[in-house]
């Protein structure tokens, strides 16, 4: 090949390269990020809409919406639609940012918006109703006394309560007998007829008066009005011999004194919620998350404590004995969760409902999860005559996941094989799993069992006296595994 041929070939190659190149794309820019509410406005949860106006760029644009709360940034949406609704499950101050990407790799950023406040679903100045206590303790208990104690303490903390006569009249009028859950219909009627904004539902998990006494309560606040949504949920489990101390001086022998402590802890936790400082788990969006890797959830308001003291996985002993998470499952995605009562296999009465309530509580602490009020799930199961002898089938999951029914993305169910903690050593054995409603498959499954004195050798150090504490520790450990990158 002589030099002129080489020159010609080079020229042809250059020209060929230029043929494929079109005009350079216009620089991508974000004109504006519009949020429906002006800064500082008290917004009810689920009412914000956002839209991104972008210009320039090459081909179809991909919009990402990020939210920031307490310096933790989370990806809220990613897709080709550049507008949508945003549901803030937790109260607090949020800022938003949009990032737009085009086909050629250009990236434009809207910058952070001013902060928007999401008010608690039910505020301090609201009117509350305290429903009678649901007894799942499998023993006789002074339910009226417990309820009256709760009412007195709530009033002492400055909350306005609906008069008992009015509540009783409402319950008689609507034949309200099940006090363990609320439906949308009932929540609407309650607000229309009595003006109530929030309802306290209390479940007695265990009650033992003879030494050493034991008290476990699960309490939640559900909004009244258009939708019955869980605003706050917490639980407490105390035993008279939790901390016996030197010569048994720390032993509590009076169950009323233990009950007062339990109530105080619950209401302290409620105060934290009303002050918008409730601890919550939020998945941060980091560089590794952008590359498709999973990140662990971060605890916000870590200085605050819950009544059950179960924000951390305390013991290696309570890790799940078998665990599965589908490779395609992304724990940080925003989802609506329906917790179906667990199946009770050979455990004590009501164990299935109790463990399900613990699951509701733990899942509610994740900012990306909206847990459906158990009363709504129960109502759906009853109205569709769904009897689940071995847990939900895929057909049952389809019903719960249907947009027109519960629109649940995840259906959590399980089995309880052992639940002892009323007397002597505590022992718990359960398994739980989640079915992805849209993909119709199990996305995670875990099984935990153990006793309160497993691995305890010296002076009861590390002993978990109640089944309440044990199931909390085991569930938290399982959720930590689900978060694991």
């Amino acid at each position, binding site marked *: 090949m002589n030099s002129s041929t080489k020159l010609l070939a080079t020229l042809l190659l250059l020209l060929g390269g230029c043929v494929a190149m079109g005009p350079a794309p216009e620089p991508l820019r974000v004109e504006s990020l519009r949020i429906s509410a002006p800064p500082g406005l008290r917004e009810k949860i689920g009412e914000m809409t956002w839209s991104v106006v972008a210009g320039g760029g090459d081909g179809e644009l991909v919009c990402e919406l990020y939210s920031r709360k307490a310096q933790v940034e989370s990806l809220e949406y990613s897709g080709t639609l550049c507008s949508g609704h945003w549901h803030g499950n937790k109260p607090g101050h949020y800022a938003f940012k949009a990032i737009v990407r085009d086909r050629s790799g250009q990236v434009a950023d809207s910058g952070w918006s001013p902060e928007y406040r999401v008010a608690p679903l039910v505020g301090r100045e609201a009117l509350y109703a305290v429903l009678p206590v649901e007894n799942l303790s499998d023993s006789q208990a002074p339910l009226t006394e417990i309820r009256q104690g709760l009412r007195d303490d709530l009033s002492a903390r400055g909350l306005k309560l609906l008069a008992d006569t009015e509540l009783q009249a409402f319950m008689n009028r609507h034949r309200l007998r099940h006090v363990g859950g609320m439906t949308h219909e009932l929540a609407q009627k309650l607000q229309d007829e009595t003006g109530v904004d929030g309802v306290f539902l209390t479940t007695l998990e265990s009650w033992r008066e003879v030494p050493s006494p034991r008290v476990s309560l699960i309490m939640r606040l559900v909004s009244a009005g258009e939708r019955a949504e869980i605003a706050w949920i917490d639980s407490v489990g105390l035993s008279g011999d939790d901390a016996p101390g030197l010569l048994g001086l720390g032993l509590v022998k009076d169950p009323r004194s233990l009950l007062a402590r339990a109530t105080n802890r619950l209401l302290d936790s409620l105060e934290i919620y009303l002050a918008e400082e409730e601890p919550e788990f939020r998945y941060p969006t980091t560089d590794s998350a952008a590359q498709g890797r999973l990140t662990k959830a971060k605890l916000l308001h870590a200085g605050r404590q819950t009544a059950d003291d179960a924000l951390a996985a305390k013991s290696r002993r309570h890790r799940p004995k*078998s665990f599965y998470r589908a490779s395609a499952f992304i724990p940080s995605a925003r989802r609506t969760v329906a917790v179906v009562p667990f199946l009770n296999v050979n455990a004590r009465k009501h164990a299935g409902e109790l463990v399900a309530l613990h699951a509701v509580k733990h899942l509610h602490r994740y900012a990306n999860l909206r847990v459906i009020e158990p009363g709504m799930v129960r109502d759906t199961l009853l109205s569709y005559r769904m009897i689940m002898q071995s847990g939900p*089938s895929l057909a049952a999951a389809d019903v719960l996941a249907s947009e027109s029914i519960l629109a649940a993305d995840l259906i959590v169910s399980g089995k309880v094989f052992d639940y002892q903690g009323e007397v002597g050593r505590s022992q718990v054995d359960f398994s739980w*799993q989640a079915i992805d409603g849209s993909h119709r498959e199990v996305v995670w499954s875990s099984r935990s069992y153990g006793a309160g004195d497993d691995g305890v050798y010296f002076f009861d150090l590390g002993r978990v006296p109640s089944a309440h504490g044990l199931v909390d520790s085991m569930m938290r450990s399982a959720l930590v595994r689900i978060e694991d990158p």
Partner: protein
Amino acid sequence: MKWKNTFPGIVLTCFLLIFLANCAWSPRHPDYTNESMDFGAVRSVAVLPFLNLSPDDQAGERVRDAFMGMLLATEAIYVLPPGEVERGISRVGIRIPQTPTMEEVTKLKGVLEVDAVITGVLREYGVVRSGSAEANLVSLSLQMLETQTGSTVWAASSTRGGISLTDRLLGSGGRPMNDVTIQVIDDLLDELFN
């Protein structure tokens, strides 16, 4: 003098016997694997309720749940949720789900869309006693039936727990039932995947 010479030998023999007893080889139950079966093609299974031959009414369900969880945790095979299996059983109309016929297994394929079905027999689940010693014992056998023809392609069994020499000498109560169950299932999963 003669006694002095033979005594160390007697002691040594005793120790040797104890050592050998401790290392006693427990015969493994032979397992069956269909050599022509491509186990890689088995992507999803339905675990049917186990036949429970133990005195504990709920033992079959306990062991089945533990097995399903551990099989799913291997991430090698997808295990259908128990509620869906229950639905399949009732739709096909299997009278005794613990021991399905070949026709019933093939019908399950149509309803549940699974590649195989696993059945099991829980032969022992409880405490065994010998003199003053007691310990937990679990014995389980499993079968895998492929849903194309309904034939058995794999079968294995395992027994774990029972009274060991340590239990006899030290009088301990053996390992917890859940731990023994996990050992048995581990054995069976080893058999299945190796």
